[in-house]
């Protein structure tokens, strides 16, 4: 795709291709502030991947994200979506093509769930029929049965349900790009974990290019295909896959930020069934299933005081993982 495609009108099912986002020496300075909020940020987010922007407060994560939909205007440099500079587009046209999810959700309290989700389709002039169909499809996607939820108001939803609607609303016009600003930051831990997993499941289906801002490195590791760590002054400290960030932090700042338990965090990136394991050959030990993470496998070893766990595949085959093998893997 050489150019951004014209706004799809009724083609609800016509899935748009994901697009690449490029930050090209993007800089944002606020007048009267000594250091920039975002300082010469250069990175490429591949089409269809999730890039988590993490870092301490004051690191300019949110500012960097807002450069994409121009809620914050660039001071210098460029941001390109699908090869086109965001500054070349009209603000509102640009924003209607980018899903936007924020921590406080910002549902319109005077509109029903359905009307909220229909916001952008309406702005784009979709037909009633197509909009309605899309609403049902999206509520289904975010696991809110349309029949029960369509006519509710925000005040009649729980925090988790509100953010699901927020996600559906952002996805409504099937934008190729999504910006998410600490979307699960205000939720309780259980709801949060559930929504993180839902997002991963949804992303499997929709394959958007997502910029996901969070201050929580664990969330970034779970959600991100790529992680961009910003330090104070909006300087990019490291941009890499979660595994690389944990395995080889670029500097002391990143190492401190990801935590001294980064070895354990790295183990949580991999499940037992993703490894080539040795046959169990009758070895004894606690039995785990293939979907267990290496971190949980290690924890089991420590709990049970053994150096071996048995991994039982879905087909009943038994393999084993030893502590020595686990140590090898971290190298």
């Amino acid at each position, binding site marked *: 795709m050489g150019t951004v495609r014209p706004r799809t009108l009724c083609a609800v099912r016509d899935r748009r291709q994901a697009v690449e986002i490029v930050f090209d020496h993007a800089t944002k300075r606020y007048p009267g502030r000594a250091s920039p909020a975002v300082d010469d940020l250069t990175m490429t987010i591949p089409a269809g991947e999730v890039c988590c922007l993490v870092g301490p407060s004051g690191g300019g994560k949110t500012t960097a994200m807002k450069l994409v939909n121009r809620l914050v205007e660039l001071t210098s440099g460029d941001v390109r979506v699908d090869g086109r500079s965001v500054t070349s587009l009209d603000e*509102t046209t640009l924003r209607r*093509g980018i899903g936007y999810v*924020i921590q406080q959700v*910002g549902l319109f*309290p*005077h509109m029903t769930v359905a009307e909220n989700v229909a916001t952008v389709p309406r702005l784009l002039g979709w037909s009633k029929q197509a909009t309605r169909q899309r609403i049902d499809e999206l509520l289904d996607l975010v696991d809110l049965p349309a029949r029960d939820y369509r006519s509710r*108001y925000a005040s*009649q939803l729980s925090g988790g349900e509100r953010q699901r609607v927020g996600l559906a*609303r952002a996805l409504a016009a099937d934008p190729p790009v999504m*910006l998410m600003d600490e979307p699960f930051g205000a939720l309780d831990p259980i709801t949060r974990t559930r929504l993180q997993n839902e997002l991963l499941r949804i992303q499997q289906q929709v394959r958007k290019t997502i910029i996901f801002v969070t201050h929580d490195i664990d969330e970034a590791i779970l959600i991100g295909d790529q992680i961009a760590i910003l330090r104070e002054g909006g300087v990019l400290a490291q941009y890499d896959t979660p595994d690389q960030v944990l395995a080889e932090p670029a500097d002391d700042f990143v190492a401190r930020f990801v935590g001294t338990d980064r070895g354990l965090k790295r183990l949580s990136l991999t499940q037992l069934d993703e490894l080539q394991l040795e046959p169990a050959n009758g070895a004894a030990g606690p039995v785990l299933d293939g979907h267990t993470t290496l971190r949980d496998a290690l924890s089991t070893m420590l709990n049970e005081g053994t150096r071996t766990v048995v991994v039982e595949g879905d087909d009943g085959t038994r393999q084993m993982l030893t502590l020595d093998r686990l140590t090898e893997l971290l190298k």
Partner: protein
Amino acid sequence: MAEPVIPDFGEASDCVAENRFFCTDWVRENWDPVLQPALVQHIYLTAIAVGVGFVISLGAALLAHRLRYVERPVAIVAAVIYTIPSLALFQLLVPVTGLTVTTVEIALVGYTVLILFRNTLAGLRSVPAEVLEAARGMGLTRNQTLLRVELPLAVPAIIAGLRIAVVSTIALATVAAFVVSKGLGGPILGALRLDFRTEIIAAGALAVGLAIVADGLLVLLQRAVTPWATARTAT
């Protein structure tokens, strides 16, 4: 034979003749010629005052919402008008607009502006920041945000303002009788001069009743147009 100078008002009942506390027979007889027309005039006086006041206030509030510096001058002018006693205001206006309904309406409109302007502006400003950010982020233009988000969300505050304005205008409009003999103030003023209790009570009660009914109707209107504000919260 000279005609009698004093017109024949017919026989007054004992109740009226003795000026007892309240005479229902007088009310029955005078509903059509006196009370009902006064009530209708009163409704007109109020409706015009609040209607015109609302249009002015809404315009001023929208302007002040976009241009912050407009707020202070409007608020000051409206507050100054609000503090002028009604009789003094009539006195000031009569030389200009005469003993007319216009004089009365100018004064009544003046008194509604402060309340309606403040409430409308407060309503427009009460929209939560995250709602506005979401609106901007989704690509609503400024005017779309105003029409689809800010104004609908300001409706409860606007109606709250209308309720105060309507009730206070109904009360104030009785004073209109000092300028023109329109509204429920007419019978009240006349009866005060004669110290005729029944008429004072009947016209006064109509004004109170009108205020209660108007207020109730506005509450119903609010429920009808803002179902979201009264929606049951999540269980």
